[in-house]
């Protein structure tokens, strides 16, 4: 049995130690906001937070997540920064198909929590591991800048 804390709740899962957290979340816990895109940490669609840091859940075995706070896109509305990121996403109409956007928001939120005023190259560096086949990068960039710009007022 694997004991995980996901979005503040304790879960006991009957899964092998090496099952990637991605598949445990999706197939076992039935939290499907975290997406499968590549399985080899190349696309970022599966991004979750482990103790606040953005991690690729497709290459993180469940055993590596034991004892850590796992946060998924489903809990981002409860996160102060995450909520603002979501709002910026909506205001700027970032998403097209939307499949990768949960992962994008998780990476962007982790960035902004660590660095509330990232410059252009810091944004690109942080986001470059998240692929979007629809090509929404300009709006993702603009949304992150918008959250960053409104930091003082919040």
């Amino acid at each position: 049995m694997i004991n995980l804390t996901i979005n503040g709740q304790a879960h006991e899962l009957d899964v092998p130690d090496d099952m990637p957290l991605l598949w445990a979340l999706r197939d076992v816990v039935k939290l499907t906001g975290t997406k499968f895109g590549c399985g080899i940490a190349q696309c970022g669609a599966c991004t979750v937070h482990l103790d606040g840091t953005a991690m690729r859940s497709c290459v993180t075995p469940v055993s590596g997540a034991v004892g850590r706070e796992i946060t998924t896109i489903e809990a981002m509305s409860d996160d102060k920064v995450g909520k603002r990121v979501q709002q910026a996403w909506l205001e700027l109409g970032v998403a097209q198909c939307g499949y990768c956007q949960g992962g994008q928001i998780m990476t962007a939120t982790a960035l902004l929590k660590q660095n509330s005023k990232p410059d252009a190259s810091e944004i690109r560096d942080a986001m470059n591991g998240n692929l979007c086949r629809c090509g929404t990068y300009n709006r993702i960039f603009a949304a992150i800048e918008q959250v960053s710009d409104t930091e003082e007022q919040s």
Partner: protein
Amino acid sequence: MSKSHDSLLLANVSRRRFLKGLAVGSALVVAARWDLAFAEEVKYGAEAMPGGWVDNPNVFISIDGNGTVTVINHRAEMGQGIRTSLALVAADELGADWDRVRVEQAEADQDKYGNQNTDGSRSMRHWYEPMRRAAAGARQMLEQAAANQWGVPVEEVETRVQEVVHKGSDRTLGFGELAAAARVLDVPARENLTLKDDSQLRYIGRETGLVNGELKNDNSRPPAIDGEDIVTGKARFGADVQMDDMLYAVIARPPVLGARVKSLDDTKAKNVPGVVKILQTEGTDMPAGFNPLGGVAVVAENTWAAIRGREALSINWDLEAAGDNASYTSEAYRQTLEQRAESSGKTVRESGDVDKALENADQRVTATYYMPHMAQAPMEPPVAVVRIKNGKAEAWAPVQHPRAARDGIAAVLGIDLENVTVHQTLLGGGFGRKSKPDFVIEAARLAKEFEGRPVRVQWTREDDIRHTYFHAVSVDRLDAALDSDGKATGWLHRTLSPSIGSLFAEDPKHKGDFELGMGFNTMPFDIPSIRLENPKAAAHTRIGWFRAVYNLPHAYAIQSFAAEMAEAAGKDHRDYLLELLGEPRQINPEKFEDGWNYGENPDIYPIDIGRMRAVVERATKEADWGKESAKGRGLGLAMHHSFVSYTAIVLDVEVDDSGEVIVHRADIAFDCGQTVNPERIRSQLEGACVMGIGIALHSEVSFKDGDTEQTNFDRYQIPRMVNAPREVHVHLVNSGKDAPMGGVGEPGLPPVAPALCNAVFAATGKRIRRLPIGNQLS
């Protein structure tokens, strides 16, 4: 011949083409429906699509007692925003408040909803008018219900937002109060419908949201239907379908097209915890249509167990069954096509005397261009769930063409169409990949083995890159004659690509009309002598639609070559391009042999040189064409007409000392005629620009001995944020009501790669004749 073949062909070929094609015995037409082929009437647009259009308000619009308006969306949502945009049309005409509108997704039912095949950039241009009429009908039924209740003539009532008002007495009744009475009234006859005047429209055509980096501070901007669900992780894509008792499967497919399982050792795989069953699944020989490749399926209790089980399989493949596909190697194939491009092939268009023009030329320009295979690679790989119970099949899948999925399931199970239900989910990207329902048919085959239990087939990214229906590899060779003033007097273009027709009939080895018509035989330049040829090219893997399809290589070659001609002539590229286009005039694409006009009426949708010139002029003006660029930096221009829309793009590109390409700015002039939701049009053009940059820079699937050399995003590279332009400006041209509506999803893509290559030339002096650029600049 399965029914899906019929719907495919009908979707892509107008009826006149059938009649014409029959006369020459084209291989593609053999697969067509004879009853329609013999129909005399030529139909265009939505009218010519299988299932046609439907404008019955009771099919698309319902209102509950609280006044909540439900709009049925029957097209696939894959990021183009159609669930929002079509509902906006309905809400506007009806008089609904956007906050009271919800959207429900239709099942696959072409007889009820009309055509649902979401490709060809058709959704809005085919459905704008039927949706306006459906909503106008619903509004008039509400008005009649109110008039009946008040006992007044219907002329005395009018609809405002969410309510009907009696003009004489200012009495009002809300939509919710009228809904039950309105529902049972007769649907107004089409000729009795009155559409709203433009001045009464609140949503259609209005600019909202992000416009070239600036947020229109407009509180009444209608939020996207799925926006909130997407940012909170609640949106349900095909991959997210959850059902009790579900089984999860992955399939080991033949590494080479046509290979079969010779022997299988599944001992180790069976011992992987969670693996339930391992079974061989049937493949179909080419031409297979949309039928799957077959292979060995591992069915398990979760996806991870299925993946581990597949890794533990030991399969010996019979490559002999694959014939010469087993020696298919991209480098050799490229050389073969390039060699073949040196000699004449099937002539598809000819005017004047090109040979003489080339012979008498003061200057000749010759170039050969190569575009590789590419995978669509939607972020959501193919995935489908099917459950079979008591002779009925039910599927949940992200499909662009739900009817083809339904047909395919019925055929493979040998059951009637009525016993197959296909539930359309959101698509995590499509780009043409999900117009082929092979993955749904795979799930149906497996579900048959587990009566009553839902079975999900999950494609991994490796499956997707290795086994998609690839964008056709292509070689285009061009030869131009210039006179002493640099003016073009002759144009010889040979294009070679395997055809999508190879899926449906014995490999035709020539492009079909719907492929040539994508910017090849519709080449618009005003040159006295023109010959266009299409020599043979055989298919050695599955070829299929990729966003904008054959427009990609045609635009890349023609727009690169026009720049090379300008250079040879010593003229400015923009001026030369306008000279090649010639005076404003209208061309009927059907006058060419094998002409094709995206299924649209050439009287309404001629190729309009004036509109082409206008987008070139606008994009170059906005980009400050002619300005001085710093060393290592330059502007590149390209234009293209596709899906009855017009696009020109200028890219401002820097190539740094290490050969890295940085796109500083994109100026895109786009004319798709009348617009409905400019905000989503802009987003489509921005996205197409990014995808096109990826096509130019690094997207390639190459084959070695019949298998792909790339299997995931580590080597099959698609654009990342760093590749996106630092600024994108989209300039909508001619967006008023006067110009007919054109496509949006695809036409932004074809000119991007040639514009980038032309900019690279401006920056470095190096011509890119082979895509992707890869490390050619380092």
